[in-house]
C-alpha cells in the first residue's frame, strides 16, 4: 500500500488564490469578479497585479453572475468568487439561464463549502451545492482535495471551454498531492489499489479516505482508494472497473447524501454493475456552528466513519 505523508497544511482556498494569481500572469483573457469577500477568497494577489481585470460587484451575487456571463461575450474568461452558498443557491436561476443554458464560459469559484466553514453555522454551510450544480446540463463540477490540486484545477479550467463549478474550502488540510501533478478534468486518481472495498472520496474527505485505508489495512482489509476530484463528468469507467474487482463501495463527501457524489456513483453502478454501497455524507440535515473537527465528527465525515462504512459494506457483499 502506498503511504501518503505531508509536511504542510494549507487551505484549499489559498490554492485557488495562487492559481488565479498565476493565471493573471499567463492568460490575459482571465478576469475575476468578487462580491465583497476578497480576503476570504484569497484574491488579493490577482487584484494587485491586475486591477483592471478585477470587478468588485459589492454584495450583489446575482448581478455578479450576470456580469460574468456578459464578460464572456467579448472573449473573456470570468472567475467569480464568493462563498459556496452564495455561488449556487443564492443565484441558481442566474446561473441556470445566463450561464448554463446560454453556454457561457464562466468559472464559478466557491469557497467555504460544507461543514468545515465552521462557526458561521448553517446559514453559510451549504451541503447541497454539488447536487444543484451537477443537475445543470453542461456544467462541470470539480471538488479538489488539497492546496496543490485546487491550484492546478484553477489553472486547468481556464483551458476548458464551458461553465465550471469549482468547490473548495476554508480549513487548513494536509497537502499530499504532488505540486507538479497535471489536473485532468474528469479523470479519477487512483491513490491505492486494493481488493476488498472501493472507497471513492472527493474534496476534504480524500485525506480521510487515505487514513481510513491505513486503518483498514491494520485490520487486514485491502481498500482501493480513488480520488474523484471531478464529480461531473464522472469517471464512470474507473468506478466500474474498481467495483468489478472489489464488489462494494463507500462514497465519502462533505455534502448531503441526496444529490452528491455518492448518488452519482450509485447511478453509475445501478446502470452498469450493481453493488452494495455505503454513503459517508450528511444525511438530509443542515449543519450548525462548531469547529470544523467537531462538526466532521458529529456528522460522521471522517476516517473513522469511512472505516465503519467499509466494514459494513463488505458484510453486505
Amino acid at each position: 500500500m502506498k503511504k501518503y505523508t505531508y509536511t504542510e497544511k494549507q487551505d484549499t482556498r489559498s490554492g485557488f488564490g495562487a492559481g488565479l494569481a498565476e493565471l493573471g500572469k499567463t492568460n490575459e483573457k482571465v478576469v475575476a469578479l468578487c462580491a465583497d469577500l476578497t480576503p476570504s477568497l484569497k484574491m488579493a494577489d490577482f487584484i494587485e497585479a491586475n486591477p483592471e481585470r478585477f470587478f468588485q460587484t459589492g454584495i450583489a451575487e446575482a448581478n455578479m453572475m450576470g456580469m460574468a456571463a456578459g464578460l464572456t461575450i467579448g472573449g473573456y474568461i470570468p472567475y467569480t468568487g464568493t462563498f459556496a452558498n452564495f455561488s449556487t443557491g443564492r443565484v441558481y436561476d442566474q446561473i441556470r439561464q445566463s450561464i448554463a443554458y446560454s453556454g457561457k464560459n464562466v468559472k464559478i469559484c466557491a469557497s467555504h463549502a460544507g461543514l468545515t466553514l465552521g462557526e458561521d453555522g448553517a446559514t453559510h454551510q451549504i451541503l447541497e451545492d454539488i447536487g444543484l450544480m451537477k443537475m445543470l446540463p453542461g456544467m462541470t463540477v470539480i471538488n479538489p482535495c488539497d492546496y496543490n490540486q485546487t491550484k492546478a484545477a484553477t489553472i486547468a479550467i481556464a483551458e476548458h471551454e464551458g461553465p465550471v463549478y469549482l468547490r473548495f474550502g476554508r480549513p487548513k488540510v494536509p497537502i499530499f498531492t504532488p505540486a507538479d501533478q497535471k489536473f485532468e478534468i474528469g479523470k479519477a486518481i487512483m491513490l491505492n489499489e486494493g481488493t476488498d472495498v472501493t472507497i471513492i472520496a472527493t474534496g476534504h474527505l480524500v485525506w480521510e479516505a487515505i487514513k481510513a485505508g491505513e486503518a483498514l489495512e491494520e485490520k487486514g482489509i485491502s481498500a482501493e482508494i480513488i480520488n474523484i476530484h471531478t464529480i461531473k463528468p464522472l469517471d464512470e469507467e474507473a468506478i466500474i472497473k474498481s467495483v468489478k474487482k472489489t464488489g462494494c463501495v463507500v462514497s465519502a463527501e462533505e455534502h448531503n447524501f441526496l444529490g452528491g457524489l455518492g448518488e452519482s456513483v450509485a447511478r453509475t453502478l445501478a446502470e452498469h454493475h450493481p453493488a452494495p454501497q455505503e454513503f459517508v455524507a450528511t444525511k438530509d440535515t443542515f449543519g450548525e456552528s462548531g469547529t470544523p473537527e467537531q462538526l466532521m465528527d458529529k456528522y460522521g465525515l471522517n476516517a473513522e466513519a469511512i472505516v465503519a462504512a467499509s466494514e459494513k459494506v463488505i458484510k453486505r457483499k
Partner: protein
Amino acid sequence: MANIEELKSFATQVRRDIVRQVHKVNSGHPGGSLGCTEFLVALYQEIMDHDPSFNMDGIGEDIFFLSNGHISPVFYSVLARSGYFPVEELGTFRMINSRLQGHPTTHEGLPGVRIASGSLGQGMSVALGAAQAKKLNKDHKLVFTLHGDGELQEGQNWEAIMYAGANGVDNIISTVDVNGQQIDGSTDTVLNMGDLKAKFEAFGWDVLKVAEGNDIEKVIEGLKEAKQHTGKGKPVCVLLTTVMGNGVDFMMGTHEWHGKAPNDEQLESALAQNPETLGDY
C-alpha cells in the same frame, strides 16, 4: 422612560458581552455589533412593546427582524439581558450544540428569533410579510428591522423597498446601520450607493436621519419620531449613522474589525474600556 444612565450602563454591559462572546470562540463579528449596540438597547429597552416570554406569531406586540444576521453577538446579548433566555447561554455562542448559532436561526429554537438570517438581503421581505400579516390580523403593533448599509447592495432589498412603497406598508420601520463599512473596505469604495435618503424616497418611503447613532438619547428620540410617522400610508426608514466598533477604541471606524476576534490582550483592553455594569455572564 428608563433612566438614560441606566440605559448607558446596559449598553456598556452589552459591549462587554459582544467582545467576550467573540473572543471565546475566536470568531464572529464585533464591528457591526458594537456599532448597533445603542440601537438594539433602545429598541428592546425603550421603544418596542414586546414580550420576552416569546411567541413566534408576535400578535399584539411589536416585533423585530435582524436582517444583517452577522451582528448576532449584540442581538443575543440584548435578547438575553431583556429576558428572552438565560444570560449564561451567551457563553455558548458559536459552540457546537448551542442555540446561539453563528447567525441567528429558528432551527435551534432560540427565543426572540423569528427567522434565520446571515445570508444577507432577505430580512426586509420577511418583515413585509409579517407586516401584512399584522394588518390582516388587525394588529396595530409595528414591525422593526435592521439592515447593514453594505447589505443594501443586495437587489432583493430593492424589490422589497419597491413593494413596501407601492403598497403603502406603513406599519414597518426599517433602520439602516450606516457605518460606511463592509468587508472589502468602505461602502463608498466597494460599491457606492449614492444618496440613500433620495433612493428610499424615490421608492415612496418616509425617511428620517439619525446622525448620532451611538448616542442612546438621540437614538431613542429618532425612533420615537419614526413611530409617529407610521400609519400614514408610507413605510418608514431610519438612516442611522453609527461608528463600526464603537466603544472599543482600536476597533472604531474601520472595516478591519467587521469579522475578527480580539486576542487576549485586545480583549483586556476592550473590557477595561467597558467596565462591568449588570454583571458578566
